[in-house]
């Protein structure tokens, strides 16, 4: 049966020149690599910034950074890690690479828009980096950018810095919207024959729901950014009340700083899950593949992703328990926040139940997946402290919060990023990454981050506030806490430096790694069944693949081989291979 979707009729011939192939490429795989490399590059900047901050906190006597620079580094570190690294990498990088391959499409449905998405993203990154060079430097308002302080004189970068940040975010949002549009439409419209929604790998589910959330949530940040730009430049009073800042009366009146916080967190909380859901999806596939066992409770896993996505739009004000908003809101948001714990817990249970009676290969991707579970469980459980409003009141804005969000949405997703890079690297390059370096990288990163962030919880319980440049002469902070801070700094520097191992491994293996073959992990999902590795333009050669089963047929009873690719037709009888429908 000659099956050619009309989208295919459009199929462009393979671009020939270097420029059309690698620079102005409309191929989702090239765009994915562009996204990933840009995100990793900007992530390294953020990593270095965090190292500088740690040096100040652990060894304040070095005087390496002053207070302004500290707050600027803190702001950019947070913003880059959350938005420009994790969001871009999960959606623009993994989403772009894996969605068409996993659903059996030749490309994204709107390749041109996809290309634009990357260039807008790059532009947003360049504008962000430019803020280092504008008068006054980048903004030091904290990644939350709360007004009034974001645009008043007592904060570094209150003039040019905040404007470049807001403009950069607006551009990023345009990029994310164009990307999200593609991811969602591709999943809905370009699945190959047989690929029903409930046969999609959880990776696609996670990225799909996260993209929908991004489409809904980013506009909140966009609106907030536009309104703040107007407040800062035209003197409107959306967020700005009448204030006297540094002895100056500001030309504002009546605005509401809390309005900004509501808008920001209406974006900000879903944003946490925009990062987390793709990580959930990717890690599910890592675990299933390397444990040689079907993911436990696929159905529940899908519905948990959907439920988390929906619920995450109803919890935003749990970031604002002590913001001065009406106290009665606390009841609602505490309940909605803790309700989210149920689907999230289901996911954790199903990951570990997948391990039970499995055949666990402790490969490097699997190690990272296991590291993710531990880190995510710690970060998720401490979320129950902070979501439960009355426990949050003493802990808000202390190091407990710092430890919590670094565990749950910093380290945990990054571990997935690493695991997924080690896992899909062979498909992207046709070569394996070095195993020894990978193991070393895993152990230093996993144990190092645990040592960094676990003790921080206790500093927070003691009451150490976050976003402090220095802790000079506070009576309630004992010397031992300062020593702990120094220790954490050493650990952070080691972990930061260890990332060189990864970078080296990444680039060295791309050129000199052991050839991997098309399916080194003996995985079932479609992307491992491409005719070429790396897949050529158009992914599938002459004929699109046809899907006959879900993506988790590992160790099916009665079948010799321990995996069955999704493209493998069901046996004629339809009733062997454990398929005992009642």
């Amino acid at each position, binding site marked *: 049966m000659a099956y050619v979707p009309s989208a295919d009729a459009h199929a462009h011939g393979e671009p020939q020149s270097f420029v059309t192939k690698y620079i102005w490429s409309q191929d989702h795989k090239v765009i994915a690599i562009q996204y990933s490399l840009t995100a990793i590059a900007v992530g390294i900047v953020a990593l270095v910034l965090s190292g500088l901050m740690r040096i100040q906190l652990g060894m304040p006597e070095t005087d390496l950074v002053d207070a302004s620079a500290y707050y600027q580094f803190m702001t950019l570190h947070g913003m880059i890690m959350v938005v420009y690294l994790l969001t871009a990498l999960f959606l623009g990088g993994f989403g772009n690479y894996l969605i068409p391959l996993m659903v059996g499409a030749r490309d994204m449905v709107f390749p041109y828009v996809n290309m634009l998405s990357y260039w807008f993203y790059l532009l947003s990154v360049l504008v962000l980096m430019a803020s280092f060079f504008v008068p006054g430097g980048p903004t030091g308002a904290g990644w939350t950018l709360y007004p009034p302080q974001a645009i008043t004189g*007592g904060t570094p970068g209150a003039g040019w810095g905040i404007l470049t940040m807001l403009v950069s975010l607006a551009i990023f949002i345009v990029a994310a919207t164009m990307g999200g549009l593609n991811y969602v439409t591709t999943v809905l419209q370009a699945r190959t024959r047989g690929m029903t929604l409930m046969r999609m790998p959880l990776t696609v589910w996670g990225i799909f729901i996260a993209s929908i959330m991004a489409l809904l949530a980013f506009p909140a940040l966009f609106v907030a950014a536009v309104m703040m730009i107007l407040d800062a430049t035209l003197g409107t009073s959306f967020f700005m009340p009448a204030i006297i800042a540094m002895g100056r009366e500001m030309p504002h009146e009546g605005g*509401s700083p809390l309005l900004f916080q509501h808008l920001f967190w209406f974006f900000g909380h879903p944003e946490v899950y925009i990062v987390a859901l793709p990580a959930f999806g990717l890690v599910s596939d890592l675990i299933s593949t390397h*444990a040689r066992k079907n993911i436990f409770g696929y159905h529940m896993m899908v519905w948990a992703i959907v439920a988390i996505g929906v619920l995450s739009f109803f919890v935003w004000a749990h970031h604002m328990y002590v913001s001065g908003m009406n106290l009665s809101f*606390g009841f609602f948001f505490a309940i909605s926040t803790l309700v989210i714990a149920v689907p999230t817990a289901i996911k954790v249970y199903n990951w570990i*139940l997948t391990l039970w*009676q499995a055949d666990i290969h402790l490969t490097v991707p699997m190690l990272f997946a296991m590291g993710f579970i*531990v880190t995510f*469980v710690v970060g998720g459980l401490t979320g129950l402290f902070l979501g439960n409003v009355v426990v949050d009141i003493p802990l808000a804005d202390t190091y407990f919060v710092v430890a919590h969000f670094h565990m749950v949405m910093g380290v945990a997703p990054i571990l997935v990023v690493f695991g997924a890079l080690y896992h899909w690297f062979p498909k992207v390059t046709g070569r394996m990454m070095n195993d020894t370096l990978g193991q070393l990288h895993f152990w230093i990163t996993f144990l190092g981050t645990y040592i960094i962030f676990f003790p921080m919880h206790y500093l927070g319980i003691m009451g150490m506030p976050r976003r402090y440049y220095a802790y000079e002469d506070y009576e309630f902070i004992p010397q031992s806490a300062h020593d702990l801070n120094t220790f954490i700094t050493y650990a952070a520097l080691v972990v930061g430096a260890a990332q060189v191992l990864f970078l080296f491994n990444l680039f060295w293996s791309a050129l000199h790694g052991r050839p991997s073959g098309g399916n080194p992990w003996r995985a079932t999902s479609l992307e491992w069944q491409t005719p070429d590795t790396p897949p050529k333009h158009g992914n599938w050669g002459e004929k699109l693949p046809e899907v006959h089963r879900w993506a988790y047929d590992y160790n099916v009873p009665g079948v010799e081989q321990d995996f069955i690719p999704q493209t493998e037709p069901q046996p004629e009888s339809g009733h062997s291979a454990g398929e005992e429908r009642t």
Partner: protein
Amino acid sequence: MVLAVILILIVVGSLVFHFLNPWTLTELASQWGSMDTMLHVSFLITGVVFVAVTLFMAVAIIRYRHRGGQRARFQPDNRRLEWWLIGATTVGIVALLAPGLVVYSDFTRVPPNAMEIEVFGEQWRYSYRYPGADGVLGYADIRHIGAGNPLGLDPDDDAALDDVVIHGGDLRLPVDRPVRMVMRSKDVLHGFFVPQFRAKMDMVPGMVTHFWFTPTRTGRFEVLCTQHCGTGHYNMRGHVEVMEQREFDAWLREQETFGRSLAATANGERPDDPVELGRRLADGEGCMACHSVDGSRRVGPTWLNLYGSEVTLTDGSTVSADESYLRRSIEDPRAQVTAGYSPVMPAYSFDEDEMDALLAYIRSLSEDAGEE
């Protein structure tokens, strides 16, 4: 196998750390023991889950790691088990949430006999206000801020005139009496947090926020800012002293009411002594938020012994802190920035008399004043 051992070590290590580490709650000084209880309940419930999940993983890895020859069991799902797990999780969540919300409803309900005290934030210090004899905090708005009125009390409001304003001093509270902290801000968001009291709240310009607590033991505690408020955030601090009711009453009686100090400012207009005028200006314009007069390091350089000293600038050059340097530093602070400090000070303009008074005040803080 290594991974399994490490996972077990992580569980054991985390538990040991939890019970033995020296960094823990400060000694409670308010009635919010219930918050501590909830913290411990949370640790108990989440701790059980953490230990169970991690150990389960360790056991699974030990038992089912790849050794060749074995096959995984094909098991797509198990609805019954999943419903059990959902049920158990829900029970755990309810066990956290229900008592938590009960405590929280205490937090939202201020006792009727609570004393109202205002805390006023600005970059980067706290001021306080007591309601005075009538027990009512008078109307205030930052539009009224001016000489002798740093908190912007309404001079036409009788309820404000008997209020007591503590500007540049410690907060004092009577022990065992519920306090409702009423909070305002002059410029940006600030926080008010005393670790020993547990409860905290942000201060938001343009609105009045509040929270309550009852101090339960006497002593002196630190006040911290917990909402990023600019370069000096880390150095925004204050002190609160909890004392016996008698002591407190005696202290409060000694304080000047707002009406009295306003009248004094109005009558005296400008004190003849330029040093005294400079001191008031420095206080009123917010200089003291960044510059100490006791030699301690804040956001800006201290004024103690500044006059006549050699100042090293960010470009490495040195300059003598004479009158013209100080004048320029006030009018164009970013021209010559002292090494080790950030260029965050806004430019100020004063009239000649005021400038002279300020300089006189700064000069008076140097030991070798007058020996030019």
